[in-house]
């Protein structure tokens, strides 16, 4: 019986179908974009490379010893002297490895990607929190962005921009943006309805309610989202290294190719300390938002 059904499906449903076309459509779309919209893509490339190289150069401008002190100082200012100490020691170890330059390049890539992702995520999150239709549309798109294997969209991006830093940055932006949007929407939706009503009852305009009431109250949640954005961006650099993204990613990829355990481990340590620095500093900043501080004072 089952065999019969299988044969029936094969003969009458699958066999008469032409080859599945979605992949080919995507292929022709990318080719079409590449020929017809090349000006746009080279513009994007110039823009991203300018800020990326600018930032990487700036980070490498000072000697590593001073930069280590600077990182430790930032950590101290953002959270506590203990964190400053941990970051100082961690960054010292990173400077000790041969990958200080690669680490700064990676940091520049993370910062550029995370900044652009944030600049896109917050307005989209605001829109989704205010508008039901926008919320229903963004949700599956974000799911798609997060679950589609990174290698899959790396391919068209490489086709559009060629090998180099740009496809790495773009793939990172796509990959790390979703939590920024989601937590912005969530944070804004979670704001106490009565407090929003109070703003309305005193005659505040919608823009004022958003900026002066909803945003400050949602800020701790939004900051948690941005922390995730940064962490995801950092986790994406290894993959970006595969397409010539430079930084620690390319070190790890080449270590993987040649089974160089020492090289891979050194670059891996650098990623870990960078992650600790970024995560704890963001946490420190999140604890410093006015609402979080007020909540801490109540305890």
């Amino acid at each position: 019986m089952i065999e019969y059904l299988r044969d029936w499906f094969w003969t009458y449903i699958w066999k008469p179908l032409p080859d599945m076309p979605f992949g080919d459509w995507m292929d022709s779309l990318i080719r079409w974009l590449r020929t017809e919209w090349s000006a746009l893509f080279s513009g994007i490339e110039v823009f991203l490379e300018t800020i990326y190289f600018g930032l990487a150069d700036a980070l490498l401008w000072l000697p590593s010893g001073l930069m280590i002190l600077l990182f430790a100082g930032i950590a101290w200012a953002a959270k506590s002297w203990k964190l400053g100490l941990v970051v100082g020691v961690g960054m010292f170890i990173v400077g000790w490895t041969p990958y200080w330059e690669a680490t700064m390049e990676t940091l520049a890539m993370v910062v550029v990607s995370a900044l652009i992702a944030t600049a896109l995520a917050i307005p989209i999150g605001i829109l989704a929190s205010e508008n039901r239709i926008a919320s229903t549309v963004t949700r599956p798109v974000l799911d798609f962005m997060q679950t589609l294997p990174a290698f899959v969209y790396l391919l068209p991006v490489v086709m559009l921009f060629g090998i180099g830093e740009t496809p790495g940055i773009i793939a990172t932006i796509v990959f790390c943006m979703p939590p920024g949007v989601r937590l912005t929407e969530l944070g804004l939706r979670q704001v106490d309805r009565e407090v929003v009503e109070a703003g309305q009852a005193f005659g505040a305009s919608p823009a004022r309610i958003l900026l002066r009431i909803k945003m400050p109250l949602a800020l701790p949640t939004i900051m948690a989202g941005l922390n995730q954005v940064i962490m995801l961006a950092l986790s994406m650099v290894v993959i970006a290294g595969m397409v010539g993204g430079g930084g620690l990613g390319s070190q790890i990829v080449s270590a993987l190719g040649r089974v160089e355990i020492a090289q891979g481990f050194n670059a891996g340590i650098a990623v870990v300390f960078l992650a600790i620095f970024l995560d704890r500093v963001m946490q420190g900043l999140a604890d410093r938002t006015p609402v979080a501080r007020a909540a801490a004072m109540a305890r």
Partner: protein
Amino acid sequence: MSALAVDSLYKVFGKGAHQAVAELKSGVPREELTNKKVTAAVIDHNFEIASGEIFVVMGLSGSGKSTLIRMLNGLVEPTAGSIWVDGVELGGLSNKGIRELRRDKVSMVFQHFALLPHRTVLENVALGLEIKKTPSAERAAKALETVEMVGLGGQEDKLPSQLSGGMRQRVGLARALAADTEILLMDEAFSALDPLIRQEMQDQLLELQKTLRKTIVFITHDLNEAMRIGDRIAICDGRIVQLGTAEDILMHPANDYVSEFTADVDRSRVLTAEAVMEPFPGTDTSDFEKVESDTLVSELYEQVLSSEDPLVVVDESSDPLGVVTPRAIIKSLAPENDSPEADQEPQQA
């Protein structure tokens, strides 16, 4: 001109609201609407509130009282009917017009205070002034003055989380008062507070009202509270079941819904000498002790006990109106006297 007026006001939530309103207009009770998916919150409300009056809306949860108060400042749009605030009809206003009306004429106090947790007491109180774009020096002075008026002097730099519930609601009240509007909407403003603090806040509100003379719409589910502070009380259950003074409602409850509420009201704090007095016994009363007609029954006990004779109730111009006897007082405190027939007895005797 009344400060606030409401004319055949309806609010029905859900699809098919207008049809439901038509049904309600023809007298269908809200439980028997054909469309079961709509919720009729406010049904056929008509009332006028005079300037300087405290108008209390009382009802259980789900009786539409929160919806009603939110319609008065345009936070909820009515399904049918009209609302006039200070002679201006809300339905005819643009969004901008409504916002201006809220800034200048109507402010609100919320059940759970609705303060901004990251702002100090002073900054919270100044919210309305900030939205009105009052210059900052004037704003700070005005906010500070209001903070002191509600008895929070010295607390102005604290955060709401550092204050007790009663103090937080004082901030909420100060915020509404600082906006300097004629009308004050209070949505279950004292319901989240402990009984003792609640009473304190009621006293403070009445004390402030003596000098401020605002028009106050006060929502509550507590009839004791309603009777303590309300000049007039509207008892709601979708429709307005009864509208009148505390005494009216206590002496002549309109139906079982109302008398269920009145059963556990402290009558001695609502009823006055005039309400419980009996007609003259026909003897000479000129030597008897006198009491003002608006004295509460709870304040008569001692005088009645210490006097051999009944007390004479006099009006403002000292004309005698009737007499109060211990018997009359005891009778007035027993809820069985609620029914109109029982109420007639003393006059027939």
